[in-house]
């Protein structure tokens, strides 16, 4: 299941019983989003829906080739933020959803919904950012569509990108494949994208040197796959890019899909000081904050050393580390071991996190 909306929109973490209308939380990537899919979309789509474990991209057989296919819409506000803009986010996000299936991206489509009155200069900057990001990610932008809606009907501009990629023979990554004994590997420090966005969001603004970590993960993934025996990722079970819902969300999704428990060593998770500080005064948990250039992988213990070494040799995996293990205890649940040797259950956010005073 691909991401639908931008990370960290303020949304509803505790919705009401008898929900009659869409609330922001339905796009937040948490439990509410899942419920919408499970209770509204899948029943309505019926047998035409691919009701597999939730994944970042679908893998389809096309003759002798396997195609990964995904779509994602970007509604981030503001359009420009430290370290990026809606344009590079739209390219990297979709490229990464393909990469999480082990796919090499082939081509992306670009769909724009523009608000009447938008400065063409702004659109130009977004488009240029997309071009640069596509070049960096080695993917072509091959088809597109542009619609304009009346003034006030959209927040400047929205972008949708869909992508197809090719999954090499032998590569089998699936969120339901984690097994007890697997190690959990994280590619680098968490929370940068979410904190960068919040720092420029109306009503919360704060000063920070943190930039969004938005980046294409394809090369990192290919290096990981190549580091395994046979070169096709044997021993890497599952991968996820922890966007909305943060690291906690990704770990919970894989624990649930695989029916295993995850033991997270909280002290091993790298959190930049500024992310820690921003989360402290907003009352947020860094584990719930969005990333756009990180991945978490579930890896067989016999190959984890090689995989981590390969990650560290890649620019985007320099700080790769093992943050936990998979267990047959507490299936479907992620349990953190605190710095004090105690434990706590780590849940994914219901909708999304709100700055709080208490």
């Amino acid at each position, binding site marked *: 299941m691909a991401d639908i909306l931008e990370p960290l929109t*303020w949304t509803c973490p505790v*919705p009401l019983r008898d929900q009659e209308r869409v609330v922001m939380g339905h796009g937040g990537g948490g*439990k509410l989003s899942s419920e919408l899919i499970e209770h509204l979309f899948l029943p309505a789509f019926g047998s035409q829906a691919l009701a597999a474990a939730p994944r970042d991209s679908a893998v389809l057989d096309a003759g002798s080739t396997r195609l990964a296919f995904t779509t994602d819409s970007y509604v981030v506000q503001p359009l420009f933020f430290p370290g990026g803009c809606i344009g590079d986010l739209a390219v990297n996000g979709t490229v990464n959803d393909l990469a999480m299936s082990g796919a090499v991206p082939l081509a992306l489509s670009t769909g724009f919904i523009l608000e009447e009155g938008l400065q063409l200069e702004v659109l130009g900057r977004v488009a240029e950012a997309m071009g640069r990001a596509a070049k960096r990610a080695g993917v072509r932008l091959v088809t597109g569509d542009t619609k304009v809606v009346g003034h006030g009907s959209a927040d400047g501009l929205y972008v949708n990108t869909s992508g197809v990629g090719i999954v090499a023979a032998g590569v089998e990554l699936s969120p339901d494949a984690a097994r007890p004994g697997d190690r959990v590997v994280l590619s680098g420090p968490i929370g940068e994208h979410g904190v960068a966005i919040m720092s420029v969001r109306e009503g919360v603004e704060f000063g920070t040197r943190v930039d969004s970590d938005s980046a294409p993960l394809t090369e990192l993934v290919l290096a990981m796959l190549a580091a395994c025996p046979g070169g096709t990722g044997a021993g890497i079970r599952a991968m996820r890019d922890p966007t909305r819902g943060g690291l906690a969300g990704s770990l919970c999704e894989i624990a649930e899909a695989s029916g295993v428990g995850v033991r997270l060593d909280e002290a091993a998770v790298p959190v930049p000081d500024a992310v820690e500080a921003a989360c*402290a005064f907003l009352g947020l948990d860094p584990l719930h904050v969005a990333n756009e250039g990180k991945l978490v992988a579930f890896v067989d213990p016999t190959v984890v050393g090689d995989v981590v070494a390969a990650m560290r040799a890649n620019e985007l995996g320099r700080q790769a580390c093992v943050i936990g293990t998979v267990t047959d205890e507490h299936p479907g*649940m992620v349990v953190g071991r605190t710095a*004090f*040797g*105690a434990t706590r259950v780590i849940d994914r956010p219901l909708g999304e996190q709100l*700055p709080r005073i208490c």
Partner: protein
Amino acid sequence: MKYLDEFRDPALARRLLDEIEQTVTRPWAIMEVCGGQTHSIIRHGIDQLLPDGVEFIHGPGCPVCVTPLEMIDQALEIAARPEVIFCSFGDMLRVPGSQHDLFQIRARGGDVRIVYSPLDAVRLAEANPQRQVVFFAVGFETTAPPNAMAVVLAHRLGLTNFSILVSHVLVPPAMTAILDSPVSRVQGFLAAGHVCTVMGTEEYDPIVARYEVPIVVTGFEPLDILDGVRRVVHLLETGESRLENAYARAVTPQGNRTAQAVLSDVFEVCDRSWRGIGIIPQSGYRLSDRYRDFDAGLRFGVAGLTVMESPLCRAGEVLQGLIKPHQCEAFGTTCTPRNPLGATMVSSEGACAAYYQFRRITPPSEVGSRG
């Protein structure tokens, strides 16, 4: 010195825990008054580290949990009006009223905004002179000075389109109410450190004297909480009832006099209803006569609204430490964070939500014996 990492040192935590273990000879029930402390306890797993028998009772120190249902409904009624920009701390958006919550009001077209500081709401009023800006002023003594300053500034700026819906509560009367309860199990308190930065510690002296109960003013980092427990346990074991300050780096006996002066100008003490507990005399603030014009309840004519709580919810007993959350029949069945019956299941500091989120892994038997 950054005053954070230093107070999260696991090695020093071990020393404090050893000291507690060496002091304890029998079970003790200690209430941490503040929801922020509850959060820290659960977040770091401090309750699991204490010796058997030393038990935390999670206190009523969370505005999300104790703001009465009728106040939420008043907020929802005001927020639904087309001329209103309704501003709130993020915490309150999740709290269910009897029909809706603020998110649903927003989904129906209400202009509901999250602010970090009440001054942001004042700025919104300045920037939108044709709209009515209403701020939901909840919280304890810590939050009262920021909210009071918003009113002072609005007054100074001559803003006629700014008002606040006041649901402020005070800590000492709640502690007294708990101690007056014939079934209360609380033997000592960790007093809320940030409340004391404003109010000082002097108002606890009469409580210590009257109820012969040890009270230790306590901070929020893991070492702060362990030190609070260490001191309370020591006082309990030696039979001393005394007020101690374990948060001396931030709290002085007299508190913040400047803030206290503004509080007594802007607010006056009144009876307040606490969700799940009922009316506690002289336990809250309302706007003083001088600033009554800024009262959103009066301005929008919603002050009379009253409603009933869910009969299934035993949050009141939880807040008073009479039962553990999992001892409520609705816990985890008809009442979950996704579908809360009472406010204690809403806030992550709420005792019920804290239990639900963080303790699902612990067998109920163990939860019962530990707290």
